[in-house]
Protein backbone atom coordinates (compact mmCIF):
# COMPACT_ATOMS: atom_id res chain seq x y z
CA UNK A 1 0.00 0.00 0.00
CA UNK A 2 2.68 2.41 1.14
CA UNK A 3 4.99 1.30 -1.68
CA UNK A 4 2.29 1.71 -4.32
CA UNK A 5 1.65 5.18 -3.19
CA UNK A 6 5.37 5.97 -3.30
CA UNK A 7 5.75 4.71 -6.86
CA UNK A 8 2.66 6.64 -7.88
CA UNK A 9 4.27 9.78 -6.43
CA UNK A 10 7.41 9.07 -8.43
CA UNK A 11 5.42 8.58 -11.61
CA UNK A 12 3.49 11.72 -10.99
CA UNK A 13 6.73 13.63 -10.73
CA UNK A 14 8.05 12.18 -13.99
CA UNK A 15 4.82 12.99 -15.78
CA UNK A 16 4.91 16.52 -14.42
CA UNK A 17 8.50 16.96 -15.63
CA UNK A 18 7.50 15.69 -19.06
CA UNK A 19 4.58 18.12 -19.31
CA UNK A 20 6.79 21.02 -18.24
CA UNK A 21 9.41 20.02 -20.81
CA UNK A 22 6.80 19.88 -23.58
CA UNK A 23 5.36 23.22 -22.52
CA UNK A 24 8.78 24.79 -22.76
CA UNK A 25 9.38 23.30 -26.22
CA UNK A 26 5.98 24.51 -27.38
CA UNK A 27 6.71 28.00 -26.12
CA UNK A 28 9.83 28.14 -28.28
CA UNK A 29 7.70 27.47 -31.36
CA UNK A 30 5.23 30.17 -30.48
CA UNK A 31 7.93 32.85 -30.63
CA UNK A 32 8.17 34.31 -34.10
CA UNK A 33 11.85 33.97 -34.84
CA UNK A 34 12.23 36.66 -37.45
CA UNK A 35 13.66 40.11 -37.71
CA UNK A 36 10.66 41.65 -35.99
CA UNK A 37 11.82 40.24 -32.70
CA UNK A 38 14.25 43.11 -32.38
CA UNK A 39 13.04 46.19 -34.17
CA UNK A 40 15.31 47.96 -36.60
CA UNK A 41 16.27 50.96 -34.54
CA UNK A 42 16.74 48.66 -31.54
CA UNK A 43 20.40 47.92 -32.06
CA UNK A 44 21.41 51.56 -32.29
CA UNK A 45 19.40 52.40 -29.19
CA UNK A 46 20.94 49.49 -27.36
CA UNK A 47 24.38 50.80 -28.31
CA UNK A 48 23.51 54.27 -27.04
CA UNK A 49 22.23 52.91 -23.77
CA UNK A 50 25.30 50.73 -23.40
CA UNK A 51 27.66 53.63 -24.00
CA UNK A 52 25.80 55.85 -21.55
CA UNK A 53 26.72 53.34 -18.84
CA UNK A 54 30.24 54.80 -18.87
CA UNK A 55 29.06 58.41 -18.80
CA UNK A 56 26.32 58.64 -16.19
CA UNK A 57 25.07 62.17 -15.61
CA UNK A 58 26.75 63.28 -12.40
CA UNK A 59 25.67 66.91 -12.45
CA UNK A 60 24.60 68.31 -9.08
CA UNK A 61 21.04 68.77 -10.19
CA UNK A 62 20.61 65.14 -11.24
CA UNK A 63 22.44 63.86 -8.16
CA UNK A 64 20.10 65.77 -5.87
CA UNK A 65 17.12 64.50 -7.84
CA UNK A 66 18.47 60.94 -7.60
CA UNK A 67 19.02 61.34 -3.87
CA UNK A 68 15.49 62.61 -3.36
CA UNK A 69 14.01 59.84 -5.47
CA UNK A 70 16.06 57.24 -3.61
CA UNK A 71 14.65 58.57 -0.36
CA UNK A 72 11.10 58.35 -1.70
CA UNK A 73 11.62 54.82 -2.98
CA UNK A 74 13.22 53.76 0.30
CA UNK A 75 10.56 55.31 2.50
CA UNK A 76 7.66 53.66 0.66
CA UNK A 77 9.48 50.33 0.77
CA UNK A 78 10.05 50.80 4.51
CA UNK A 79 6.43 51.76 5.14
CA UNK A 80 5.21 48.77 3.12
CA UNK A 81 7.60 46.43 4.89
CA UNK A 82 6.59 47.67 8.34
CA UNK A 83 2.97 46.93 7.56
CA UNK A 84 3.97 43.60 6.03
CA UNK A 85 5.84 42.65 9.22
CA UNK A 86 2.78 43.36 11.34
CA UNK A 87 0.60 41.25 9.03
CA UNK A 88 3.24 38.50 8.95
CA UNK A 89 3.57 38.41 12.74
CA UNK A 90 -0.11 37.95 13.52
CA UNK A 91 -1.01 35.74 10.58
CA UNK A 92 2.24 33.77 10.86
CA UNK A 93 1.75 32.98 14.54
CA UNK A 94 -1.86 32.00 13.86
CA UNK A 95 -0.97 29.91 10.80
CA UNK A 96 1.79 28.05 12.62
CA UNK A 97 -0.72 26.76 15.17
CA UNK A 98 1.74 27.18 18.06
CA UNK A 99 -0.75 29.15 20.11
CA UNK A 100 -3.51 26.55 20.09
CA UNK A 101 -3.41 23.24 21.90
CA UNK A 102 -4.89 20.00 20.68
CA UNK A 103 -4.40 18.40 17.29
CA UNK A 104 -8.03 18.97 16.36
CA UNK A 105 -7.92 22.72 16.93
CA UNK A 106 -4.64 22.91 15.03
CA UNK A 107 -6.14 21.14 12.06
CA UNK A 108 -8.92 23.71 12.03
CA UNK A 109 -6.92 26.89 12.62
CA UNK A 110 -3.83 26.27 10.52
CA UNK A 111 -5.42 25.77 7.08
CA UNK A 112 -7.70 28.74 7.69
CA UNK A 113 -4.87 31.22 8.24
CA UNK A 114 -2.51 29.53 5.79
CA UNK A 115 -5.03 29.94 3.01
CA UNK A 116 -5.44 33.63 3.84
CA UNK A 117 -1.67 34.07 3.62
CA UNK A 118 -1.80 32.14 0.35
CA UNK A 119 -4.41 34.51 -1.03
CA UNK A 120 -2.31 37.58 -0.10
CA UNK A 121 0.78 36.37 -1.91
CA UNK A 122 -0.98 34.72 -4.86
CA UNK A 123 -1.54 38.21 -6.27
CA UNK A 124 1.55 40.12 -7.36
CA UNK A 125 2.24 43.53 -5.84
CA UNK A 126 1.77 45.23 -9.21
CA UNK A 127 -1.69 43.71 -9.54
CA UNK A 128 -2.51 44.80 -5.99
CA UNK A 129 -1.31 48.26 -7.03
CA UNK A 130 -3.73 48.33 -9.95
CA UNK A 131 -6.54 47.23 -7.68
CA UNK A 132 -5.75 49.90 -5.10
CA UNK A 133 -5.32 52.65 -7.66
CA UNK A 134 -8.67 51.66 -9.11
CA UNK A 135 -10.31 51.79 -5.69
CA UNK A 136 -8.54 54.56 -3.75
CA UNK A 137 -6.98 56.46 -6.62
CA UNK A 138 -3.40 57.58 -7.22
CA UNK A 139 -2.08 57.78 -3.69
CA UNK A 140 1.03 56.73 -1.83
CA UNK A 141 -1.19 54.49 0.25
CA UNK A 142 -2.03 52.49 -2.85
CA UNK A 143 1.66 51.66 -3.22
CA UNK A 144 2.20 50.95 0.48
CA UNK A 145 -0.78 48.60 0.71
CA UNK A 146 0.14 46.98 -2.57
CA UNK A 147 3.55 46.16 -1.15
CA UNK A 148 2.38 45.25 2.34
CA UNK A 149 -0.18 42.63 1.39
CA UNK A 150 1.83 40.21 -0.79
CA UNK A 151 4.97 40.75 1.29
CA UNK A 152 2.98 40.12 4.45
CA UNK A 153 1.71 36.93 2.82
CA UNK A 154 5.19 35.70 1.92
CA UNK A 155 6.81 36.67 5.23
CA UNK A 156 3.90 35.26 7.21
CA UNK A 157 4.15 31.95 5.40
CA UNK A 158 7.91 31.69 6.01
CA UNK A 159 7.48 32.84 9.62
CA UNK A 160 4.84 30.16 10.21
CA UNK A 161 7.08 27.48 8.70
CA UNK A 162 10.00 28.56 10.88
CA UNK A 163 7.85 28.50 14.02
CA UNK A 164 6.65 25.01 13.19
CA UNK A 165 10.21 23.77 12.69
CA UNK A 166 11.49 24.98 16.05
CA UNK A 167 12.98 22.14 18.16
CA UNK A 168 10.36 20.96 20.60
CA UNK A 169 12.50 20.04 23.63
CA UNK A 170 13.05 23.63 24.84
CA UNK A 171 9.36 24.40 24.37
CA UNK A 172 8.28 21.32 26.33
CA UNK A 173 10.76 22.28 29.05
CA UNK A 174 9.33 25.81 29.24
CA UNK A 175 5.82 24.42 29.50
CA UNK A 176 6.97 22.00 32.18
CA UNK A 177 8.33 25.02 34.06
CA UNK A 178 4.83 26.49 34.00
CA UNK A 179 4.95 28.71 30.90
CA UNK A 180 1.66 29.50 29.18
CA UNK A 181 1.37 29.44 25.38
CA UNK A 182 2.04 33.15 25.18
CA UNK A 183 5.04 32.92 27.51
CA UNK A 184 6.40 30.01 25.47
CA UNK A 185 6.10 32.28 22.42
CA UNK A 186 8.20 35.04 24.03
CA UNK A 187 10.75 32.79 25.69
CA UNK A 188 10.96 29.90 23.23
CA UNK A 189 9.59 30.32 19.73
CA UNK A 190 10.50 33.93 19.04
CA UNK A 191 14.11 33.85 20.31
CA UNK A 192 14.70 30.66 18.35
CA UNK A 193 13.48 32.06 15.02
CA UNK A 194 14.70 35.63 15.55
CA UNK A 195 17.95 35.36 13.59
CA UNK A 196 16.52 33.56 10.57
CA UNK A 197 13.35 35.63 10.29
CA UNK A 198 15.35 38.86 10.59
CA UNK A 199 17.70 37.83 7.85
CA UNK A 200 14.82 36.73 5.62
CA UNK A 201 12.93 39.97 6.30
CA UNK A 202 16.02 41.96 5.33
CA UNK A 203 16.23 40.07 2.05
CA UNK A 204 12.55 40.84 1.49
CA UNK A 205 13.19 44.50 2.29
CA UNK A 206 15.71 44.51 -0.54
CA UNK A 207 13.04 43.09 -2.86
CA UNK A 208 10.60 45.70 -1.57
CA UNK A 209 12.98 48.51 -2.55
CA UNK A 210 13.14 47.20 -6.10
CA UNK A 211 9.37 46.79 -6.23
CA UNK A 212 8.80 50.21 -4.77
CA UNK A 213 11.06 51.66 -7.49
CA UNK A 214 9.03 50.26 -10.34
CA UNK A 215 5.73 51.01 -8.69
CA UNK A 216 6.12 54.69 -9.49
CA UNK A 217 3.39 54.41 -12.08
CA UNK A 218 0.81 54.54 -9.30
CA UNK A 219 1.96 58.06 -8.63
CA UNK A 220 4.51 57.84 -5.85
CA UNK A 221 7.51 59.22 -7.71
CA UNK A 222 10.80 57.68 -6.82
CA UNK A 223 13.65 56.17 -8.81
CA UNK A 224 11.47 54.22 -11.24
CA UNK A 225 9.51 57.31 -12.14
CA UNK A 226 12.73 59.25 -12.85
CA UNK A 227 14.10 56.39 -14.95
CA UNK A 228 10.92 56.40 -16.97
CA UNK A 229 11.04 60.18 -17.52
CA UNK A 230 14.69 60.08 -18.61
CA UNK A 231 14.03 57.16 -20.92
CA UNK A 232 11.18 59.09 -22.55
CA UNK A 233 13.55 62.04 -23.07
CA UNK A 234 16.25 59.66 -24.41
CA UNK A 235 18.64 60.88 -21.65
CA UNK A 236 20.30 57.55 -21.14
CA UNK A 237 23.14 59.03 -19.06
CA UNK A 238 20.56 60.12 -16.49
CA UNK A 239 18.93 56.70 -16.61
CA UNK A 240 22.19 55.15 -15.49
CA UNK A 241 22.62 57.61 -12.65
CA UNK A 242 19.25 56.54 -11.25
CA UNK A 243 19.99 52.87 -11.84
CA UNK A 244 23.27 53.23 -9.94
CA UNK A 245 21.43 54.80 -7.04
CA UNK A 246 19.05 51.86 -7.00
CA UNK A 247 22.00 49.48 -6.94
CA UNK A 248 23.63 51.46 -4.12
CA UNK A 249 20.40 51.27 -2.11
CA UNK A 250 20.27 47.51 -2.47
CA UNK A 251 23.95 47.13 -1.57
CA UNK A 252 23.51 49.32 1.51
CA UNK A 253 20.57 47.25 2.70
CA UNK A 254 22.57 44.10 2.10
CA UNK A 255 25.43 45.46 4.20
CA UNK A 256 23.02 46.44 6.96
CA UNK A 257 21.45 42.99 6.84
CA UNK A 258 24.86 41.32 7.19
CA UNK A 259 25.63 43.54 10.14
CA UNK A 260 22.35 42.62 11.83
CA UNK A 261 22.79 38.92 11.17
CA UNK A 262 26.27 38.95 12.64
CA UNK A 263 24.96 40.67 15.76
CA UNK A 264 22.13 38.16 16.13
CA UNK A 265 24.22 35.06 15.60
CA UNK A 266 27.52 36.26 17.07
Amino acid at each position, binding site marked *: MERNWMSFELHKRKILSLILGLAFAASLFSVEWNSELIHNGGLTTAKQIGLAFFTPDLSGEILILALESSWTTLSYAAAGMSLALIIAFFFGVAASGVMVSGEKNKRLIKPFFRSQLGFMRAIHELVWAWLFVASIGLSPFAAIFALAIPYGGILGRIFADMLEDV*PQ*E*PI*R*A*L*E*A*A*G*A*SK*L*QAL*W*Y*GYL*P*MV*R*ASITSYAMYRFECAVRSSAIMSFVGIGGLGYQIQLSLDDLHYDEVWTFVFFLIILVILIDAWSNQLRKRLI*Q
Partner: protein
Amino acid sequence: MAEIINVNRISKNYERKIALSSLSFTVEKGELVALIGPSGAGKTTLLNMLGAIFPPDQGEIVISGKQIAEMTDQKKRAKKIGMIRQQFDLVGELPVIHNVLAGRLSDWGVMKSLVSLLIPQDKDYATAALDRVGLKDKLYERTSKLSGGEQQRVALARLLVQSPEIVLADEPVASLDPARAEDVLELLVNIASEEKQTLIASLHSVEYARKYFDRLIALKNGELFFDLPSSSVSDDHIKRLYSLKEHS
Protein backbone atom coordinates in the same frame (compact mmCIF):
# COMPACT_ATOMS: atom_id res chain seq x y z
CA MET B 1 7.93 10.57 56.40
CA ALA B 2 4.91 11.24 54.23
CA GLU B 3 4.27 9.51 50.96
CA ILE B 4 4.47 11.94 48.04
CA ILE B 5 4.26 9.70 44.96
CA ASN B 6 2.07 6.66 44.59
CA VAL B 7 2.31 4.73 41.34
CA ASN B 8 -0.44 2.13 41.13
CA ARG B 9 -0.26 -0.56 38.44
CA ILE B 10 0.47 1.72 35.52
CA SER B 11 0.93 0.38 32.00
CA LYS B 12 1.86 1.99 28.73
CA ASN B 13 1.94 0.52 25.23
CA TYR B 14 3.28 1.94 22.00
CA GLU B 15 1.30 0.28 19.24
CA ARG B 16 2.25 -3.38 19.75
CA LYS B 17 5.20 -2.68 22.01
CA ILE B 18 4.80 -2.79 25.78
CA ALA B 19 6.83 0.03 27.31
CA LEU B 20 5.65 -0.46 30.91
CA SER B 21 3.44 -3.15 32.36
CA SER B 22 1.61 -2.96 35.66
CA LEU B 23 4.24 -1.05 37.58
CA SER B 24 3.66 -0.04 41.21
CA PHE B 25 5.78 1.70 43.83
CA THR B 26 5.63 4.57 46.28
CA VAL B 27 8.12 7.31 47.05
CA GLU B 28 8.35 9.21 50.32
CA LYS B 29 8.94 12.91 50.59
CA GLY B 30 12.63 13.79 50.39
CA GLU B 31 13.78 10.44 48.98
CA LEU B 32 16.57 10.35 46.42
CA VAL B 33 15.70 7.63 43.92
CA ALA B 34 17.78 6.45 40.98
CA LEU B 35 16.04 4.72 38.10
CA ILE B 36 18.30 2.22 36.39
CA GLY B 37 17.97 -0.47 33.78
CA PRO B 38 19.05 -1.27 30.25
CA SER B 39 18.13 1.04 27.40
CA GLY B 40 14.50 0.53 26.38
CA ALA B 41 13.51 -0.62 29.86
CA GLY B 42 10.90 2.14 30.17
CA LYS B 43 12.68 4.73 32.32
CA THR B 44 11.88 7.69 30.08
CA THR B 45 8.31 6.51 29.67
CA LEU B 46 7.88 6.33 33.43
CA LEU B 47 9.40 9.77 34.08
CA ASN B 48 7.27 11.36 31.37
CA MET B 49 4.13 9.94 32.95
CA LEU B 50 5.22 11.15 36.39
CA GLY B 51 5.76 14.57 34.82
CA ALA B 52 2.28 14.46 33.25
CA ILE B 53 3.73 14.74 29.75
CA PHE B 54 1.33 11.94 28.81
CA PRO B 55 -1.03 9.73 30.87
CA PRO B 56 -0.64 5.98 31.47
CA ASP B 57 -2.89 3.63 29.48
CA GLN B 58 -3.95 1.87 32.66
CA GLY B 59 -3.41 2.50 36.35
CA GLU B 60 -3.07 5.75 38.26
CA ILE B 61 -0.44 8.10 39.58
CA VAL B 62 -1.19 9.97 42.79
CA ILE B 63 0.95 12.95 43.80
CA SER B 64 0.46 14.24 47.36
CA GLY B 65 -2.92 12.54 47.51
CA LYS B 66 -4.09 14.00 44.22
CA GLN B 67 -4.61 12.16 40.94
CA ILE B 68 -2.06 13.45 38.44
CA ALA B 69 -4.76 13.39 35.76
CA GLU B 70 -6.60 16.07 37.76
CA MET B 71 -3.59 18.37 38.03
CA THR B 72 -4.44 20.16 34.82
CA ASP B 73 -3.33 23.65 35.85
CA GLN B 74 0.14 23.82 34.33
CA LYS B 75 1.27 26.65 36.60
CA LYS B 76 0.29 24.85 39.78
CA ARG B 77 1.78 21.62 38.50
CA ALA B 78 5.10 23.38 37.88
CA LYS B 79 5.23 24.22 41.61
CA LYS B 80 4.82 20.52 42.34
CA ILE B 81 6.85 18.79 39.63
CA GLY B 82 9.95 19.98 37.80
CA MET B 83 11.80 18.18 35.03
CA ILE B 84 15.34 18.22 33.75
CA ARG B 85 16.53 16.23 30.77
CA GLN B 86 19.52 16.51 28.52
CA GLN B 87 20.95 19.88 27.66
CA PHE B 88 18.64 20.44 24.67
CA ASP B 89 16.08 21.78 27.11
CA LEU B 90 17.38 25.35 27.09
CA VAL B 91 16.70 28.09 24.57
CA GLY B 92 20.23 28.55 23.21
CA GLU B 93 19.48 31.93 21.64
CA LEU B 94 18.56 33.56 24.95
CA PRO B 95 21.06 34.95 27.46
CA VAL B 96 21.58 32.69 30.46
CA ILE B 97 19.61 34.95 32.79
CA HIS B 98 16.37 34.52 30.83
CA ASN B 99 16.73 30.76 30.68
CA VAL B 100 17.09 30.79 34.46
CA LEU B 101 14.24 33.23 35.04
CA ALA B 102 12.00 30.98 32.90
CA GLY B 103 11.65 29.11 36.21
CA ARG B 104 9.58 32.11 37.36
CA LEU B 105 7.14 31.96 34.44
CA SER B 106 4.63 30.00 36.50
CA ASP B 107 4.42 32.98 38.88
CA TRP B 108 4.53 35.71 36.28
CA GLY B 109 1.76 37.13 34.17
CA VAL B 110 2.13 37.74 30.46
CA MET B 111 3.12 41.40 30.91
CA LYS B 112 5.75 40.79 33.54
CA SER B 113 7.37 38.01 31.52
CA LEU B 114 7.46 40.30 28.48
CA VAL B 115 8.94 43.21 30.42
CA SER B 116 11.51 40.88 31.94
CA LEU B 117 13.03 40.19 28.53
CA LEU B 118 14.01 43.88 28.44
CA ILE B 119 14.55 44.60 32.12
CA PRO B 120 15.11 41.31 33.98
CA GLN B 121 12.59 40.98 36.83
CA ASP B 122 13.24 39.19 40.13
CA LYS B 123 16.89 39.26 39.15
CA ASP B 124 17.97 38.22 42.66
CA TYR B 125 16.49 34.78 42.08
CA ALA B 126 18.65 34.33 38.98
CA THR B 127 21.87 35.58 40.55
CA ALA B 128 21.39 33.46 43.66
CA ALA B 129 20.63 30.35 41.60
CA LEU B 130 23.56 30.90 39.25
CA ASP B 131 25.83 31.53 42.19
CA ARG B 132 24.69 28.22 43.66
CA VAL B 133 25.60 26.31 40.49
CA GLY B 134 28.88 28.21 40.08
CA LEU B 135 28.02 30.31 37.03
CA LYS B 136 27.67 33.76 38.58
CA ASP B 137 29.82 35.38 35.90
CA LYS B 138 27.78 34.01 32.97
CA LEU B 139 24.60 35.97 33.68
CA TYR B 140 24.39 37.70 30.30
CA GLU B 141 26.23 35.17 28.17
CA ARG B 142 24.39 33.65 25.23
CA THR B 143 23.34 30.20 26.46
CA SER B 144 24.40 28.34 23.31
CA LYS B 145 27.98 29.52 23.88
CA LEU B 146 28.26 27.59 27.13
CA SER B 147 29.70 24.08 27.31
CA GLY B 148 27.44 21.07 27.81
CA GLY B 149 28.20 20.88 31.51
CA GLU B 150 27.60 24.61 31.99
CA GLN B 151 24.30 24.39 30.12
CA GLN B 152 23.18 21.61 32.41
CA ARG B 153 24.07 23.82 35.36
CA VAL B 154 21.90 26.56 33.87
CA ALA B 155 19.07 24.03 33.68
CA LEU B 156 19.69 23.28 37.36
CA ALA B 157 19.57 26.99 38.13
CA ARG B 158 16.20 27.23 36.37
CA LEU B 159 15.00 24.33 38.48
CA LEU B 160 16.23 26.12 41.62
CA VAL B 161 14.21 29.18 40.67
CA GLN B 162 11.17 27.08 39.81
CA SER B 163 11.61 25.27 43.13
CA PRO B 164 9.25 22.30 42.67
CA GLU B 165 8.66 19.70 45.40
CA ILE B 166 9.50 16.81 43.10
CA VAL B 167 12.39 16.81 40.62
CA LEU B 168 12.34 14.34 37.75
CA ALA B 169 15.62 13.98 35.90
CA ASP B 170 15.91 11.88 32.74
CA GLU B 171 19.54 10.99 32.03
CA PRO B 172 20.59 14.45 33.24
CA VAL B 173 24.28 13.76 32.63
CA ALA B 174 24.11 11.40 29.65
CA SER B 175 25.77 13.77 27.21
CA LEU B 176 28.57 14.95 29.51
CA ASP B 177 32.09 13.64 29.92
CA PRO B 178 32.67 11.65 33.15
CA ALA B 179 34.29 14.42 35.18
CA ARG B 180 31.59 16.95 34.40
CA ALA B 181 28.87 14.34 34.70
CA GLU B 182 29.85 13.68 38.27
CA ASP B 183 30.01 17.40 39.11
CA VAL B 184 26.54 18.04 37.75
CA LEU B 185 25.08 14.94 39.39
CA GLU B 186 26.56 15.86 42.74
CA LEU B 187 25.11 19.34 42.40
CA LEU B 188 21.69 17.93 41.48
CA VAL B 189 21.65 15.62 44.50
CA ASN B 190 22.99 18.26 46.90
CA ILE B 191 20.45 20.82 45.81
CA ALA B 192 17.64 18.28 46.14
CA SER B 193 18.63 17.36 49.68
CA GLU B 194 19.19 20.96 50.76
CA GLU B 195 15.88 22.09 49.32
CA LYS B 196 14.18 18.98 50.77
CA GLN B 197 13.02 17.98 47.30
CA THR B 198 12.09 14.48 46.23
CA LEU B 199 14.37 13.42 43.39
CA ILE B 200 13.86 10.66 40.84
CA ALA B 201 16.66 10.44 38.28
CA SER B 202 17.23 7.89 35.55
CA LEU B 203 20.90 7.07 35.05
CA HIS B 204 23.06 5.09 32.70
CA SER B 205 25.71 4.57 35.32
CA VAL B 206 25.01 2.15 38.16
CA GLU B 207 28.17 3.39 39.84
CA TYR B 208 26.81 6.94 40.13
CA ALA B 209 23.41 5.62 41.14
CA ARG B 210 24.86 3.72 44.08
CA LYS B 211 27.18 6.52 45.04
CA TYR B 212 24.71 9.38 45.16
CA PHE B 213 21.24 7.89 45.73
CA ASP B 214 19.48 6.28 48.70
CA ARG B 215 17.31 3.95 46.71
CA LEU B 216 17.57 2.18 43.37
CA ILE B 217 14.57 1.20 41.30
CA ALA B 218 15.56 -1.11 38.47
CA LEU B 219 13.38 -1.61 35.42
CA LYS B 220 13.76 -4.28 32.80
CA ASN B 221 11.47 -4.88 29.82
CA GLY B 222 8.91 -2.51 31.31
CA GLU B 223 8.69 -4.33 34.62
CA LEU B 224 10.06 -3.77 38.08
CA PHE B 225 13.25 -5.82 38.40
CA PHE B 226 14.19 -4.74 41.89
CA ASP B 227 13.55 -1.85 44.28
CA LEU B 228 16.17 -1.71 47.01
CA PRO B 229 18.17 0.65 49.20
CA SER B 230 21.44 1.27 47.38
CA SER B 231 23.43 -0.37 50.17
CA SER B 232 21.71 -3.72 49.61
CA VAL B 233 22.16 -3.81 45.83
CA SER B 234 24.71 -6.50 45.03
CA ASP B 235 26.89 -6.90 41.96
CA ASP B 236 24.89 -9.98 41.13
CA HIS B 237 21.70 -7.91 40.98
CA ILE B 238 23.36 -5.58 38.54
CA LYS B 239 24.74 -8.38 36.42
CA ARG B 240 21.31 -9.98 36.09
CA LEU B 241 19.72 -6.60 35.37
CA TYR B 242 21.95 -5.92 32.40
CA SER B 243 22.28 -9.48 31.10
CA LEU B 244 20.51 -10.06 27.81
CA LYS B 245 19.33 -13.60 28.41
CA GLU B 246 17.35 -12.98 31.56
CA HIS B 247 13.63 -12.52 30.97
CA SER B 248 11.75 -11.48 34.01
